[in-house]
């Protein structure tokens, strides 16, 4: 773990970007730049981070940075890495690709899969705010069960998204990547440590970081870090890393906070507290519990006791 004093004071991302107040992805970008120890080349998928950080003629980046398309970020990173390898400079530069959850879980998954399989030396960071926020909060493969988005609205019959969230890290681990990890913007030293580990890997590494969006999740802009922390403390978003296929829990949650404390401040889950959707709230709870149990089992943790349902 790093300490605050050890972090560089230099800001390679911003200030001056136009991300929203309380933006989780903006915090992710800033922390990433503090984590990287070598000169970096950044590749950014289409999304909030890209759009709001490089409105011509301004740029918030003090490192070489390129945005091309939505779904090809890992492929562009592949080309960059191939060129640097040809120039004999591959070991002197950290190539970091940023993609949101839409650009990673959905439209960019093929390019990511190819790049992981080919073992390009780069770090892929998926900042996950659990929907297509840049286009106006549409559901993605990362949107959790029950969440209301503009394409899975909380209707009178269908209460939000009816499909579970994809297991991104599982997909990446299945490619045999040397290092993959989840992280949360609330746990900055865990995140920075993981970025450094990922960057040190010779080959591809993936970090999946939960980065709350006040606008899309509908909560107070001052609560971003609190929500990101509650996601972990309620077992909603387990923090773990996978090195050479071996899972390790990064943060144990001996006294989990009830899931409601994470859900209730968010407008996207509000409808689940209506009596007619009690079973959907229960379904989400089951999915969270089952995911936690699966991950902790993979991490070799003792089986968790199921807390009493607080219906």
């Amino acid at each position, binding site marked *: 773990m790093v300490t605050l004093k050890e972090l560089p004071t230099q800001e390679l991302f911003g200030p001056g970007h136009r991300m929203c107040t309380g933006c989780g992805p903006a915090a992710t970008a800033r922390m990433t730049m503090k984590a990287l120890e070598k*000169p*970096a*080349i950044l*590749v950014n998928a289409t999304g909030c981070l*890209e*759009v709001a950080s*490089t*409105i*011509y*003629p301004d*740029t918030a*980046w*003090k*490192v*070489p*940075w*390129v*945005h*091309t*398309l939505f*779904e*090809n970020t*890992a*492929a*562009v*990173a*592949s*080309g*960059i890495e*191939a*060129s*640097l*390898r*040809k*120039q004999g400079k591959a070991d*002197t*530069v950290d190539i970091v690709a940023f993609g949101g959850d839409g650009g990673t879980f959905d439209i960019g998954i*093929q*390019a990511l*899969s*190819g*790049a992981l*399989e*080919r073992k390009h030396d780069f770090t892929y960071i998926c900042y996950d705010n659990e929907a297509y926020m840049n286009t106006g909060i549409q559901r993605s493969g990362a949107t959790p069960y029950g969440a209301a988005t503009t394409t899975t609205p909380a209707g009178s019959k269908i209460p939000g998204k009816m499909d579970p969230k994809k297991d991104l890290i599982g997909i990446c681990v299945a490619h045999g990547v040397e290092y993959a990890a989840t992280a949360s913007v609330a746990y900055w030293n865990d995140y920075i440590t993981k970025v450094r580990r990922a960057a040190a890997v010779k080959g591809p590494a993936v970090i999946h970081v939960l980065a709350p969006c006040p606008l899309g999740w509908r909560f107070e802009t001052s609560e971003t870090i609190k929500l990101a922390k509650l996601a972990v403390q309620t077992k909603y978003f387990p923090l773990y890393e996978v090195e050479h296929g071996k899972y390790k829990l990064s943060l144990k949650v001996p006294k989990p906070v009830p899931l409601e404390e994470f859900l209730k401040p968010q407008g996207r889950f509000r409808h689940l507290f209506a009596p007619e959707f009690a079973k959907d709230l229960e379904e989400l709870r089951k999915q969270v519990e089952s995911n936690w149990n699966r991950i902790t089992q993979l991490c070799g943790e003792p089986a968790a006791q199921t807390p009493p349902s607080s219906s």
Partner: protein
Amino acid sequence: MMKTVSQRIVGMNGDEAVAFAAKQAEVDVVAAYPITPQTIIVERFSDYVANGEVDTQFVCVESEHSALSACVGSSLIGSRVFTATSSQGLALMHEVLYLASGLRTPIVMAVANRALSAPINIHNDHSDMMGSRDCGWIQIYAENAQEAYDWTLQAFRIAEDHKVSLPVTVNLDGFTISHAMEGVAVLEDDQVSKFLGTRNPMYKLDAANPMTFGALALPDYYSEFKRQQVEAMNNTPPVVTAVADEFRKISARQYSAVSTFSVDDAEAAVICLGSIAGTARAVATRLRQQGKRVGVIKIWQYRPFPTSEVAELLSNVKSVGVIDRAVSFGAPYGALCSDIASTKVLTGIETKMFNVICGLGGRDVKPTDIEGVFERALRHARGEPIGDTVSFVGVRT
């Protein structure tokens, strides 16, 4: 008189000739995905890599979309980059094509032209490239393997010239050129090295000099970016001429935007792209022997379109049959004929014109088909009726 240059003649098909040119160009990175009839290009290049004959990073990607995306990444680092595709592959690359030209990456891509689905068909026509003709790439059409080799080499010089800095496609007709074995006169490696030099990028992704590429340009700046791309296109013809001049000195082969055959005193002519030109010349030769004043105009450099050259060539021709090897559904003419129509409007030449669509999905374009086009053009020239000004040839009714 051209100086005689002794050159090795190597038996190669069009794909092999292109791969050989890319090898001699000492490309830094190739990122490609296989598709018939382009496959031989990537296979031969893989052989060169596997046998250590070339020091290239070959990225064998999982789709054409990623192929061109990886090429863009490499090109932005400052590398010399090559790729190849065809048909559906080019269609899958469509949005990346605009990215490559918009980011001004001088990538060279061979396109072994093939029909587009549906119905699926692996054979030649120009639907693939015509579907992307406004993508901001310089577009060259070769007639045979020799031209595919020569243009691939020249393409790197043209693309990487700072006045241009645009990507180039070298088109070769699927199977007709890509798979047909010919004797190809090749330059020596050191001649090519000297001719091409190494790429000297204007701007690049460089840790020592951080720059932002691919920023969001809103209505206050977007138009200027596009305007600059137009200027780069406009800068291209003199660069092509200069590169072709230099290439002639080492190869004794002369290239330009258009190639002509007995057009000077022609009453009637045919305009076409690619391998049909060979058939057209053979037919024209025979008709000339019968005293018929016919000629052939082959467009090498389709984009930027050589409007003034074509207008000058046509100014004394009474009628021209324009051959399109692709359909522009719902449009008044096929793509090439639309360009000729625009040329007429822009320059005021009074040449009569009609459009022939043929050779779709690899349908053989026979000498008799072309003869029919010449005969119609001659009748047209004499003021006789010729029927529809847009018609299919060699197609069941």
